[in-house]
């Protein structure tokens, strides 16, 4: 037990567990990833630096003409925006006790309608861009709202209905894209007009190309808004109450159905924005019949961020870095690109055990405290009858345990 002590101390501070446990999970998986790479005879350090370089967070040794670290970094921000939106969408649903697996479908639907209605029009940018956002939010919110309604009115598990809707949306939009606006060469939809795009592509700044993402600004703002919604408003309180205990919430006079549908619509609206920044920002085109993997990764990102809007911001940065840097890392170190996906999923695996770690750590501290109490007479002073025999570590422990006790009462 003594050996584990520094770790227990690090993880045991309840005030910081929201951060320390995910960090612990990340460190564990980075170590696990390193072991795998060492087994393959590769240098893990070079690989991790490669990931950071690929994401534009650390300069590469050399750049192709017209590109620079800023190119990579702006592209990274551009990819980050939809991830933040999608993960926030999961967060809002989760807080209401709803498991929105339909993010990918809602994104696709929102992107489809925005592309169809605005993407190919001749509207000037000051009309086109806001319209894209409005259409995307509406499409996402309606699709998810329907799921919420089905859940409340007909007791249909949102897990099943969102999955069904994912497929329906994927196939129906695929049919329309293939029939009406597919590019015969790329097999994707035709590129949208730049006026409708949420990313200003290929701007030149100081001799390098950059993509300016409007989405990232909106995404950070959305995270703050969701924080405000969940922690400072009545609706947020109701959402959390319904998520925590339906019966109690109903008894307290909260309208379950209304809250469920509203939470789902907010979640869907955010998913819609993720779709807009994904299909009309980062990519500017749609692949028929393909649900974005991002919609599922976002579930994991939200979990890693403890379903807290600000935690989600941090988690999104981490997951997007791993994804974005993988290609460069792969060509630099000669490890297949897929390893970054494995590391990502290991992070999630370890963070899924967060509850257990919390439980174990807190129990261990409890035990330590009890042991101390058994050994010691009530007063602090007489706690060490023979000072020479008690190690400094033990004293430290007992002080910590006492502090802990005080903290619990507060």
């Amino acid at each position: 037990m003594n050996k584990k002590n520094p770790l227990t101390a690090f993880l045991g501070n309840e005030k910081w567990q929201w951060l320390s446990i995910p960090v612990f999970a990340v460190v564990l998986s980075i170590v696990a990833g390193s072991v795998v790479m060492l087994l393959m005879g590769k240098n893990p350090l070079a690989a991790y630096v490669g990931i950071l370089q690929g994401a534009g967070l650390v300069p590469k040794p050399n750049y192709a003409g017209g590109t620079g670290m800023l190119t990579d970094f702006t592209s990274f921000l551009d990819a980050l925006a939809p991830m933040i939106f999608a993960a926030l969408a999961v967060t809002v649903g989760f807080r209401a006790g709803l498991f929105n697996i339909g993010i990918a479908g809602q994104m696709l639907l929102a992107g489809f309608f925005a592309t169809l209605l605005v993407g190919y029009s001749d509207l000037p940018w000051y009309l086109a861009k806001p319209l894209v956002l409005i259409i995307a939010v509406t499409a996402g919110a309606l699709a998810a709202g329907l799921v919420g309604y089905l859940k409340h009115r007909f007791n249909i598990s949102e897990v099943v209905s969102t999955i069904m809707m994912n497929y329906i949306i994927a196939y129906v939009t695929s049919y329309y894209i293939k029939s009406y606006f597919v590019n015969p060469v790329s097999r994707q939809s035709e590129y949208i007009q730049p006026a409708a795009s949420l990313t200003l592509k290929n701007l030149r700044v100081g001799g390098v190309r950059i993509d300016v993402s409007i989405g990232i600004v909106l995404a950070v703002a959305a995270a703050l808004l969701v924080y405000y919604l969940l922690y400072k408003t009545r609706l947020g309180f109701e959402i959390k109450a319904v998520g925590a205990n339906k019966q109690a919430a109903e008894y307290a006079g909260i309208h379950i159905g209304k809250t469920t549908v509203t939470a789902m619509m907010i979640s869907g609206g955010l998913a819609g924005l993720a779709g807009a920044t994904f299909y009309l920002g980062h990519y500017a085109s749609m692949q028929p019949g393909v649900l974005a993997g991002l919609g599922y990764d976002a579930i994991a990102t939200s979990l890693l961020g403890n379903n807290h809007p600000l935690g989600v911001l941090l988690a999104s940065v981490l997951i997007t870095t791993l994804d974005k840097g993988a290609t460069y890392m792969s060509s630099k170190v000669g490890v297949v690109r897929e390893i970054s996906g494995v590391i990502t999923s290991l992070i999630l695996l370890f963070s899924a055990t967060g509850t257990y770690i919390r439980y174990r750590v807190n129990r261990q501290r409890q035990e330590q405290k009890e042991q101390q109490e058994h050994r010691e007479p009530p007063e602090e002073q007489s706690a060490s009858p023979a000072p020479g025999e008690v190690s400094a570590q033990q004293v430290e422990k007992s002080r910590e345990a006492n502090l802990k006790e005080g903290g619990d009462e507060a």
Partner: protein
Amino acid sequence: MMDRMIIDGLAFALPLFIIAVGGIYSERSGIINLALEGLMGFGAFSGALAVVLVLRSFPGLQPQGIYIAMIFAMVGGALFATIHAALCIYFKANQVISGVVINILSVSLTAFLTRQLNSLIFKAPSDRFQLGVANRITIPGLSEIPVLGAAFRNLYPFQIAIILVAVAAYVLFEKSRYGMRLRACGDNPHAVAAAGVDVERIRFSAVVISGALAGLGGISFAYSISANFSPMIYMGYGYLAIAALIFGNWGMTTTLGAALLFGFARSGGYELARALEMSSTFNDITMTLPYVLTLILLIFFSKTNRVPRSLGEIYDKGKR
């Protein structure tokens, strides 16, 4: 046309059914299993890898390949399921979260391993293991029956295996003492514990069985629809199986009905498009048939659903 609908429908419905049976085992024991998709995929990966390795050394075993694949798919699925079981039972993780994480892990891990092993063993930068489509069997005699005889024509070997496994799974589930305890674990684990049975052990075994069955279903899809193992196997059939078992109200026979409905709706949609001589893009519309049908049927049947009472609850010995 009717024949083709029955043949294709069954070839899809049976693998789906066996995955759903796996889900029933897990969920009736009280563990939510959203991981079916990942278990199915990892099972298919293990089976495909085993076959590719065996055939590399013994090319003569080609005809027996599918049987080797089925065995290893079940083993692989079962092994992978221990992660879900351990997370849910011993690490007290949220079961829904664990399921999603297992799925993500399965996708990335198999993609990584497939690419890595391909370049390591076969020196080829490929993201798939080529399997081909299994040979089909026609049962003499029974296949002569008009209309329904089609159910015995052009069978894949895995369909017969699935039927045998499903019967065994049914007997174990409904008639044995183990099955009774398993079902009791899902409704009232404390009562089972009071009878002196180790709840955690029963639940663990149930999840492992569900992994084995999902693996069998996965390799069946790999040997029929996709003819290879690649990350494309994650088409969401595991989720569809979950829909089937919820729609089937967590019962074996009703779930079989749901799976058959999906299968026939799917093949029926294809046949409809073919009969109306529509362009192949229209297939996208007919492909939505099983999903739309599920949603509509759920509207009518969900009210009466009886969920296993302690499904998703973390079992705590100290809590009564």
